[in-house]
């Protein structure tokens, strides 16, 4: 198959050999599981159980709420000890609402559980619903609820379903092992997903440094129409969905549009596996395969772990730490996040746990930029990190926006190649944080303005009604008192919407409304003004 070119990218050392050749092993069930209610993009799930409840394996712990959300299920049977604040797997380590489940080791499935009906007979929207009920989210790290993605993509005719098996991050090999060991299930999952999207064809993209995975997937896909397994060059960030779209279809997704709008949908292999498990085995997303690696890990390997397992449990199973790691990372080394300590749980989106030594991190002293332009060459988006960083150093957010900092995908290519070891991504994340805050503030101001305007209008209409009544009364009085005055008052009663005496207030109110629209900063003053008016 002909591939199209793409821009930028880097070649970090793959370092997958320590884990890629060992089969996935299963972690023994930990004594306690910590399930944060927010393991996905969107609204946090709403707890369905209360402390002290006995739950079965696969039972719903928390229901999804809102448009974009995903439910959380019990990975094993046991007792809910508490629903409390617990450190999140996030660099800050700040607490989030978490269901703490004490397992009983029996792994009891709910007695009500039955094997699902034939998934092939389901209609596309039914598949999306089932996937949503199973709590499946994007397993590549994005953690966007898969059901929502399937539903949104249905609004467009989908031409090509791309399955992302590139796994471009160094160290990680969990997708590689998944493709090698569970290829038939993956192919089923791909076919079901393609059906759910009504996609004409599906393409599995695997980086060419994973020949075994490619062979396994090709063998499993043999004889299936419109299902291609292709090799793509090993170059980070090949796993960026828009990169894959560009290299496979030769098209780019317009800024602000969904990939479905150009007829493409990208899903990760891990997600497709979870979809297959949900539809064919009726198992919600209870566990995932992770890579435990890094120089400080005694026995690096791939593990299937229940969601909610603590990082410390996983490290203990892998023989503990050889040395004090310089960085403890959840996810890959290029886009993963530092975790503050080992006492945080693994969540649905965690693709790996890395304990990196100082030698591996190789984070030399930061020096001034020499404008070597390696970051410009490496950026897959086409940004100029050197210029954005120069502006952000002076806290010139608008200057950075002019250079497109809002388009940054945080792939870390620029920081990776920087010979001056400038933490460029840190700068850009800061800028995006500030932009988020600004957006929130603007939205708030907009809401306040709308509310103030509504109040003005309400008060004005009340006043108008009052004036109308008053006018009617005086008119009646006038009618009764002197017959001569009838002619004079007639024009006022002609137009009941604009009573003569209310006219003055009406124009004043209009002036005030124009004033509000012109000046946002003085929103708080406006209710006072209207009080004075009335």
């Amino acid at each position: 198959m002909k591939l199209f070119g793409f821009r930028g990218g880097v070649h970090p050392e793959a370092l997958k050999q320590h884990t890629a050749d060992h089969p996935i092993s299963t972690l023994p069930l930990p004594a306690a599981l910590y399930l944060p209610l927010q393991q996905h993009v969107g609204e946090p799930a709403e707890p369905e159980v209360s402390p002290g409840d006995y739950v079965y394996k696969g039972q719903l712990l928390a229901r999804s709420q809102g448009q974009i959300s995903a439910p959380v299920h019990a990975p094993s049977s046991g007792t809910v000890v508490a629903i409390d604040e617990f450190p999140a797997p996030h660099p800050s380590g700040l607490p989030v609402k978490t269901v703490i489940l004490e397992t009983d080791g029996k792994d009891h499935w709910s007695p009500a559980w039955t094997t699902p009906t034939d998934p092939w007979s389901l209609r596309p929207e039914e598949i999306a619903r089932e996937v949503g009920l199973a709590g499946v989210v994007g397993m590549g790290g994005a953690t966007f609820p898969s059901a929502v993605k399937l539903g949104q993509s249905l609004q467009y005719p989908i031409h090509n379903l791309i399955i992302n098996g590139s796994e471009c991050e160094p160290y990680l090999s969990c997708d590689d092992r998944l493709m090698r060991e569970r290829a038939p299930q993956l192919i089923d999952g791909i076919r079901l997903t393609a059906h759910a999207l009504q996609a004409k064809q599906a393409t599995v993209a695997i980086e060419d440094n994973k020949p075994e995975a490619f062979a396994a997937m090709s063998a499993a896909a043999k004889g299936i129409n419109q299902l291609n397994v292709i090799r793509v060059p090993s170059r980070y960030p090949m796993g960026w969905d828009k990169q894959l779209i560009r290299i496979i279809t030769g098209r780019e997704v317009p800024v602000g549009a969904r990939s479905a709008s150009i007829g493409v949908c990208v899903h990760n292999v891990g997600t497709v596996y979870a979809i297959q498990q949900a539809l064919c085995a009726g198992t919600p997303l209870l566990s995932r395969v992770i890579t435990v690696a890094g120089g400080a890990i005694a026995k690096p390997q791939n593990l299937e772990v229940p969601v909610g397992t603590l990082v410390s449990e996983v490290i203990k199973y892998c023989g503990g730490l050889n040395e004090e790691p310089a960085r403890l990372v959840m996810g890959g080394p290029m886009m993963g996040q530092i975790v503050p300590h080992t006492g945080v749980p693994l969540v649905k989106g965690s693709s790996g746990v890395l304990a990196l030594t100082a030698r591996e991190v190789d984070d030399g002293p930061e020096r001034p930029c020499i404008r070597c332009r390696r970051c410009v060459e490496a950026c897959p988006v086409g940004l100029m990190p050197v210029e954005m960083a120069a502006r952000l150093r002076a806290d010139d957010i608008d200057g950075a926006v002019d250079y497109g900092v809002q388009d940054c995908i945080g792939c870390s290519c620029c920081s990776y190649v920087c010979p001056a070891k400038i933490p460029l991504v840190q700068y850009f994340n800061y800028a995006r944080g500030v932009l988020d805050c600004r957006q929130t503030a603007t939205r708030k101001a907009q809401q306040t303005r709308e509310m103030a305007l509504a109040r003005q209008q309400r008060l004005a209409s009340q006043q108008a009604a009052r004036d109308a009544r008053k006018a009617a009364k005086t008119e009646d009085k006038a009618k009764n008192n002197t017959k001569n005055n009838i002619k004079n008052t007639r024009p006022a009663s002609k137009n009941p919407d604009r009573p003569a005496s209310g006219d003055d207030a009406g124009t004043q109110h209009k002036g005030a409304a124009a004033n509000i629209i012109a000046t946002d900063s003085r929103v708080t003053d406006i209710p006072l003004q209207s009080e004075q008016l009335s």
Partner: protein
Amino acid sequence: MKISIPQAAPHVRNPGRVPSLMTTVLIALSPITLFAVYQFGWPALNLIGLCLLSALLFEILCLYSTGKPLDTYILDGSGMLTALLLALSLPPHAPWWIAICGSGFAIIVGKHVYGGIGQNPFNPAMLARVALLLSFPVEMTHWTQAAPLLSTAAPSFIEGLQITFQSSTAFDGLTAATTLGQLKTDLSQGLPLQQLTEQYFQPLDSSLGLTAGSLGETSSLLIAIGGLYLLRQRIFSWRLPTSFLGSLLLLSTTAWILAPEIYASPLFHLTSGGVMLAAFFIVTDPVTSPCTRRGQLLFGTGCGALTFVIRTWGGYPEGVAFAVLLMNAMTPLIDHYVRPRRYGRSRTGTPIKRPLWRRIREFFYTQPKSPSSGSDK
């Protein structure tokens, strides 16, 4: 439980560092330096030594007075690189104070006044060279014929010290004009060019470096080898030297074909003066050239065109240094206007349009109906 400092990705880094980049460039310059010492003897060695040493002292002075950490900055090699490039652009028999003034100007005014490494808008070596040329035109255009080390014509060690430190004129007999200088003088006297070039321009000598000229600018061949080594090491892209040499070649060829009696041949332009050194070591300076691919092409083309213009119609025989400085001044402008196209956007920054057939297909597409029971969360 160890609490680590939050730090954004990446958590692995490329092993390349600023000092190693500078070292690579210094390695690429070493054959030229050695050849300069061989060709011009002890005075050349004196000048190079003086430039490097004084640059080091000025660097320490500047870092100390601005309160920057000495250990990180002094060993990054950028000051050494500037000093070496400056030394290579000096006339071989220049006096000691030329070297020290030049180094001082390059390091203090060319670099640290703007905030140190990476902040200078102009190439420090070229800035110092131009400053010296304007301030001390006699010393800066006092060229000597090459006299290889240990040959009979070469100055001895003592004589070399005398040349550098006492401005001894004992070797006045060796004075020679550069090909570019000669050309300018003779053309102004109305002599026909054809005859002139045959007299003193031998392309082979010029590319091997057997002519009079600045220390490191004579051997185009060695410079090109150093430059190709850097290209292979990916220190710079091919765009800058290629566009620079390309535009110079194009303009000089066009002029030469149109009027060979007035304009010098393209080969003459490419092999004489500082063109080769500039193409691989000055124009490619990352700090003072644009970041984007198209910007680099623009910058190189501008340098080449200005060099040709200054050489042909300007008052100075050599125009490379002026051309580079002029284009350095344009770099911020180029970086502001010439940017790469961003993903999903057109060059103007608006979202790209979806293909027409896609929109037509969408128009006729009906979304599968939701089942009556479904659509809840």
